[in-house]
């Protein structure tokens, strides 16, 4: 009986992230539009876009292989599983110990791997351009993220997200410089990985600087919908991850009752809204970088992650 309850809770978590993800994207678009004194589309527009894409036919390139058709589902499922492992409204869910933070990074790496492969499949120059740049960005962003994860794990004494969040919210930690460094590194990685300004521009097409959009250029219909949904999920994952590390308030423990879960959910909504708004403000206030300036930007994340880890290694021996 208890197992069934836990399974239901885990299922609820998976549905919550899936349902909220397009809304977060919509919110960011909306806030950005308002900041530019436009009215902007409704927050629900991404849902409508997805529904529209689902209704449309798929147009496949003549030489697209099975990999091209299977990749959207692989990308989506890897991202979805990763997103479901991040604590949103509660911790200690049934399968939270399945994969730790390192495995979570690697799951996102799998999604990127298959997306890059799919973009090479049709054999167009845009696909290759996007894939090669994405892998370059990933090659620096992933170690930066892992080093930030190391820092967090060393502070909390665990790589299990549930345990980490439990530790963070227990108040034992105090204020730590290295934690701040890890958070900044995580934010830098999040911006790069989600193809946001200044690394990539999610709103542009037909521009030589684009990365993510160049990779999905050949996709259409339901396949494109899966990829868009996966991208939205990834954004939600990062906002939730940074949220539960920087502001671990209100997350319900595993044995909390329904009231606890509802509170946790409301807190989670507030964090998403705050994260989305901050991202929109940030994106409005900076300009897109040249492609070969990106390594410098990500290099900062890498350095901060390393610095944070170093500090912790040293202070352990004090």
């Amino acid at each position, binding site marked *: 009986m208890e197992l069934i309850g836990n399974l239901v809770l885990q299922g609820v978590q998976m549905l919550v992230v899936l349902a909220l993800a397009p809304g977060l994207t919509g919110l960011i678009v909306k806030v950005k539009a308002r900041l530019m004194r436009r009215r902007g589309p409704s927050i629900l527009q991404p849902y409508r876009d997805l529904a529209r894409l689902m209704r449309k036919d798929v147009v496949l390139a003549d030489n697209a292989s099975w990999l091209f058709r299977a990749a959207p589902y692989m990308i989506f499922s890897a991202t979805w599983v990763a997103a479901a492992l991040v604590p949103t409204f509660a911790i200690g869910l049934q399968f939270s*110990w399945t994969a730790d933070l390192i495995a979570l990074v*690697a799951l996102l790496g799998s999604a990127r791997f298959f997306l890059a*492969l799919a973009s090479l499949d049709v054999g167009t120059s845009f696909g290759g351009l996007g894939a*090669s740049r994405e892998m370059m960005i990933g*090659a620096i962003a992933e*170690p930066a993220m892992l080093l930030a994860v190391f820092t967090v794990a060393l502070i909390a004494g665990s790589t299990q997200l549930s345990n980490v969040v439990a530790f963070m919210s227990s108040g034992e930690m105090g204020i730590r410089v290295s934690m701040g460094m890890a958070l900044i590194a995580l934010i830098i990685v999040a911006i790069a990985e989600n193809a946001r300004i200044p690394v990539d521009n999610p709103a542009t097409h037909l521009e030589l600087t684009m990365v993510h959009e160049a990779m999905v250029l*050949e996709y259409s219909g339901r396949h494109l919908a899966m990829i868009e949904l996966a991208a939205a999920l990834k954004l939600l994952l990062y906002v939730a991850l940074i949220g539960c590390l920087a502001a671990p308030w209100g997350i319900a423990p595993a044995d909390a009752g329904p009231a606890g879960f509802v509170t946790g959910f409301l807190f989670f909504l507030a964090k998403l809204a705050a994260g989305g708004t901050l991202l929109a403000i940030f994106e409005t206030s900076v300009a897109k970088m040249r492609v070969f300036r990106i390594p410098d930007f990500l290099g900062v994340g890498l350095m901060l992650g390393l610095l944070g880890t170093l500090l912790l290694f040293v202070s352990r021996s004090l």
Partner: protein
Amino acid sequence: MIAFAVCSVLCLLGLSLAAIGMRDIRAASAIVYGASGVLCAGLVVVGLRVLATQADAESMRVPVGLPWLGAHLQIDALAAVFLVLLGTGGAAASLYAIGYGRHEHAPLRVLPFYPGFLGAMTLVVLAADAFTFLLSWEVMSLLSWAMVLTHHREEETRSAAYLYLVMASLGTMMLLLAFGLMAGAAGGYEFAAMREAERSPGVAALVLGLMMVGAGSKAGLVPLHVWLPVAHPAAPSHVSALMSGVMTKVAVYGFVRVAFDLLDPVVWWMSVPVIVAGAGTAVMGILFANVDADAKRILAYSTIENIGVIFAALGLALAFRANGMDVLAALALTAGLIHAMNHMLFKSLLFMVAGAVLTATGRQDLDALGGLIHRMPKTALLALVGVTAIAALPPLNGFVSEWLLFQAVLQSPNLTQPGLQFLVPAAGGLLALAAALAAACFVRFFGVIFLGRPRTNMARDAAETDRWSLAAMAGLALLCVLAGVVPGLLIDLIAPAIDLVLGARMPAQADNAWFTLVPVAEVQSSYSGFLVMVFVAISGGAAAAAVYRFSSRRTRRAPAWDCGFPDADPITQYGAGSFAQPIRRVMAPMIAARETVIMPPPGDMGPARHSVVTEDLAWTRLYLPLSALVGLAATRLNALQFLTIRRYLALVFASLILLLTGLTIWN
């Protein structure tokens, strides 16, 4: 057990001799490869039995070799682990070669050497005294050298083989010195005697350094790696698979045997060069793999990377052990050995894929291939498993060992020495960088070979490879998946070997629910490849089902969109060079990459040219000056060839006096 293993070795060596006489037999290669495969499978069984029964070490003394020493052979848990590794790799390569070997123009250039090579590697693992070890090591080197020379009519192959021979001699010499030092003045050449001997930290450090050069040059540690990316690809593909997948592991075995079993617990600072060399090798190897354009050379460079990862793990284990943290040392050593095992699986698989592509198209440069997923669908699927595994992506096996290693890194703040406290996180960062670069490298590898449109007619007209090869690749791919999904079994299996050399082992993994890995304690970290796979499969399946149910199911085919550029030539696709460009530019200082663009002035009809040069700094800064120095010395010493007899006698006399003086001072 030992008798059975020795019989297998004798059969393999005998098979080598028999192969010479099979000139006129049409099925010679099928017989030789088939028999080698069966014998290798027997070795796997022997190794598994020793590990499963946790049997005590069995030894045997064969009265051959030096009269007072004989040849000591022993099979203990550590040897058994490597027997399993060797046998699996050998069996798969032999199975593959039954099909692949048919395409060889001159099978007799490989057949006599192949079983002997396998036998010599087995003997290295079984050896229990310095002479047997060194002799079989040298035979292993020479036989593999002979197979590197298979396509001896190509100039590149000859120079690669020459370089390999020089480096192998250097390595063996270092090993000779290392074993000489361990044996000491009394000459206890049996491993049992070496284990007991007392030696000062200085001697131990010297031995470890010599082992790093000796075993490291065979395994491919930077900067001793220069021969590997030219020699491994030059051999036929099944031999490349053996050299990269298995022979480098035999070198790892030599290092583990000496550093963990024969030497006394080392002092902490001796682990520093091992960690530095390992992490540096990992990054440099994969960087070169990222910019190379030859399929087999990419794989060889990636071997260098993986060897770096293994050595970093071994170094970490040494550091833990020097601090008396034996359980953590067991974690790091397990990570290293599991990675050795995993690397054997996926690297053999990928070399076989490269061989299949080579057979089907006749080309191994990436820019001549493309679109093979349509022509060779089965090979493509198996290759996809291989690249996913080697890119350290869950739920396959490459990720498991990578994850274990990161767990070991995360345990290392407990090390007390400040030097290690700075080194280990930096090494962790480098390893993470290497893993991410490996993903980029193998997207390029798979993408340029199998995806896109064919770049040449050879690629367009390729055909699927034969069944034997497919069976071998499928077996390895299956093992990759299994080792990723149920890694606990493998960890428990090699636990006796870890226990043997460290006196401690990781917590048993068999009792964990859902095949979860728990390296230290569940509050700290856990990972279940099985559940991740199930989850990804279920959520992907559910998503596909939902989409199938609710969406428009129609699919049309149309020309590629490509932002409105129709029917572009296949040459406009991203190829090996263009895909590497971003990483090459970002990492330019490390690989000395220089790009030059020659743009004709306006009005000139000449083509614009873009050329890229990368150089291996180890080669240009270390080896070329060194060889120039050797050349210079040789020219100078040439004069010694034209002396009178009296002067020759004087030289002999002088060296005798010098030696006697040295002996006097020494005593």
